[in-house]
């Protein structure tokens, strides 16, 4: 009997070791890349900035140099560290949870943002910076990073969802893209494209990019204003049915290789004229110019086709909010610098010039500096911002709650995979079942 107990203990300890061992691959570690600005200035206040995008680090680095020129008495030494996506968010979560080790400024991706708006919020409100200029913003974008009327994130772009058409294929099929007003027109055009070129009209990824923009455009979402889950409501079921039909019935849309818009496989597929169009936020311009050189001059941007029962022309999607953490040694300075970098007029102009992002401040959209020729106008066409100005009042935002990350997770893992790719689940059943699962999680 003693022996059994002893061996039992041993197994128990092994089990403990086992359960504590998982996840070691992803914790800790140093930054992939570190940039420093203002390190040669004496008395400069040191600020750290974490991001998961190397281009954002360069952007902040450049901003710090401009700041130091304009504010020599309040110079800053900015250290920008780039980490892998998951690692950065995990480290930030643990740093804020434990009250130690967080940076002054940090990029938080939209799907992760609600995780940081729980408990005693460890981010600083940006309202004092935003209040005087808020009328110049498309506020739907700011709302995504807010809780109880406090804004915590400075947006990187508006992320207005648009359709990118490959004109080579559209011309071959004889489709006039300006005649596509509604999604039904889009499907009809798609059939024409498929018939004459054999190519799919569209690509539907099996993560939330294949669903969220479409329901938001219908004025629907995952939650109502009271925070009640509305995932399986009439509009959403109808929309998912529509998408399912595009892929599995009319076969005018396919799941992109790699199942996502940001994979090597997909870049190659699209670059080779694999699909006639794709629906994705404006920020994707940079992906076109970087990874699809063969499509130079062949792509036209248009607002999304509308649903017959809604006027919404575009949806602000994706995007990263930069926040100031409460652990910052100089919160005021960090906030002012953030405001200078991303909220000011100049900052918004730079967002377009350096990163090719549609600035969240609409008052810079016809600024001569924004209109000045650059690689994006060359690759696409000149009237990009006229299109945006035209639909400015018809851009919808999305309603974020603390459970939004769970919904996005479930959508990718269960709903879209089964309904769109495997085609073995009915849209209605999939959404209703997932809604039940989520309600269990939301206690």
């Amino acid at each position, binding site marked *: 009997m003693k*022996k*059994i107990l002893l*061996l*039992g203990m041993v*197994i*128990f300890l*092994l*089990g*403990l*070791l*086992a*359960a*504590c*061992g*998982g*996840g070691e*691959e*992803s914790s800790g570690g140093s930054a992939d890349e570190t940039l420093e600005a203002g390190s040669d200035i004496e008395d400069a206040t040191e600020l750290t900035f974490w991001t998961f995008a190397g281009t954002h680090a360069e952007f902040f680095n450049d901003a710090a140099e401009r700041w130091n020129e304009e504010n020599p008495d309040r110079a800053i030494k900015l250290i920008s560290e780039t980490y892998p996506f*998951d690692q950065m*968010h*995990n480290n930030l*979560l*643990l740093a*804020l*949870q434990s*009250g130690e080790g967080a940076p002054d400024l940090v990029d938080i991706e939209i799907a992760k943002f609600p*995780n*940081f708006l*729980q*408990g*005693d*919020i*460890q981010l600083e409100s940006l309202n004092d910076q935003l209040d005087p200029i808020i009328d110049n913003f498309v506020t739907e974008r700011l709302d995504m990073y807010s809780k109880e009327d406090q804004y915590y994130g400075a947006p990187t772009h508006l992320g207005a969802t648009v359709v990118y058409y490959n004109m080579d294929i559209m011309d071959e099929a004889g489709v006039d893209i300006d005649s596509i007003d509604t999604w039904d027109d889009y499907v009809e055009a798609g059939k024409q494209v498929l018939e004459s070129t054999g190519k799919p009209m569209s690509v539907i990824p*099996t*993560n939330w990019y294949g669903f969220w923009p479409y329901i938001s455009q219908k004025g629907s979402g995952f939650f109502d204003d009271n925070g009640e889950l509305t995932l399986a409501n009439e509009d959403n079921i109808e929309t998912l049915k529509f998408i399912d039909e595009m892929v599995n019935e009319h076969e005018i849309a396919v799941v992109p*290789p*790699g*199942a996502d818009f940001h994979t090597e*496989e997909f870049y190659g597929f699209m670059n080779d004229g694999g699909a006639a169009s794709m629906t994705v936020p404006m920020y994707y311009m940079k992906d076109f110019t970087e990874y699809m050189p063969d499509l130079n001059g062949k792509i036209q941007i248009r607002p999304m086709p509308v649903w017959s029962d809604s006027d919404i022309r575009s949806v602000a999607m994706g995007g990263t909010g930069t926040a100031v953490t409460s652990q910052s040694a100089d919160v005021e300075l960090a906030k002012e610098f953030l405001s200078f970098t991303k909220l000011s007029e100049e900052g918004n102009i730079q967002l377009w010039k350096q990163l090719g992002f549609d600035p969240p401040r609409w008052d810079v959209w016809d600024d001569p500096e924004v209109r000045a020729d650059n690689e994006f106008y060359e690759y696409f066409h000149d009237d990009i911002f006229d299109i945006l100005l035209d639909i400015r009042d018809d851009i919808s935002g999305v309603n974020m709650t603390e459970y939004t*990350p*769970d919904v996005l*997770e*479930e959508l*990718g*893992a*269960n709903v879209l*995979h*089964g309904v769109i*790719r*495997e085609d073995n689940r009915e849209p209605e059943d999939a959404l209703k*079942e997932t809604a039940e*699962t989520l309600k*269990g*999680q939301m*206690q």
Partner: protein
Amino acid sequence: MLETPTKTNVEVNRESSRLKRMLNFLNSKKVVPYVFILPFVISFLLLTFIPAVQAFVMSFQKVLPGQTTFIGWQNYERILNPTFYKALSNTTIYVILTVLILVIVPIILSVFLDSKLVRFKTFFRASLFIPSLASIIVAGTIFRMVFGESEVAVANQVVTFFGFEPVDWRYNSWSAMLLMVLLCSWRWMGVNVLYFLAALQNVPKELYEAADIDGANVIQKFLYVTLPHLKPIVIFVSTISIINGFRMFEESYVFWETNSPGNIGLTVVGYMYQQGIQQNDMGFGAAVGVVLILIIFVISFVQLLLTGAFKRGDE
């Protein structure tokens, strides 16, 4: 200095005798083992035991910055959901497959490698062992490329060569399981072969001679002489494989990170990581961890009872 020489001598004597007694004490048969295991015990207590107890406490809490509250059994009540069942069933299938493969195949391989008929033994032994030295991240990246979706990926070229349709390896549940099991088996095969090879050296030659005299054929010799002598190693290898199987994380992570389509690659530890860290629900993650400990404990216990590992050899 010269004033009280005797006193100093006495002091020196006293000190040295104290030192001696101290050393004697540390050297005594009763104490010495504890001295040697002390470093392990300390690191175990600090790095494993205390965090484990904290995790246990945490599993009854909702952990948010500045607002940690006890919520009773709520985390445990939420565990019984379809995603957890999916993770558990994935993990269980994975454990069964890896245990079967990693016990049976290495036995056969090690018998071959031990046989006098096989040539280039060292080469085969080394090439079986080398995969276990590879980093799983590196190996996983290569595997992901080999099993890419495109038609020119290695695996699909092989499949199409034999006249089958190319497969979307990472998007079907059967092929997802295949990928994970394959990666794990490929990595640990060599290690297990080593264990069995070592055990084979201990089988007395006389027994084979006796069996020869009794007219036993090759298969009979394997079943009635070799296998019984391998039993302790079989128990050891299967226990380790079961425990490692249930705590599996990396084999799934390298293929899909934590979000596999239809959760086909989700494991219990992956679920714990996803919910606890990625979704900022540490209390729930801790509860999943506690349930996992219990599962591993019960299964290992039952397994060791059934295989008779608790019995003495002479009973």
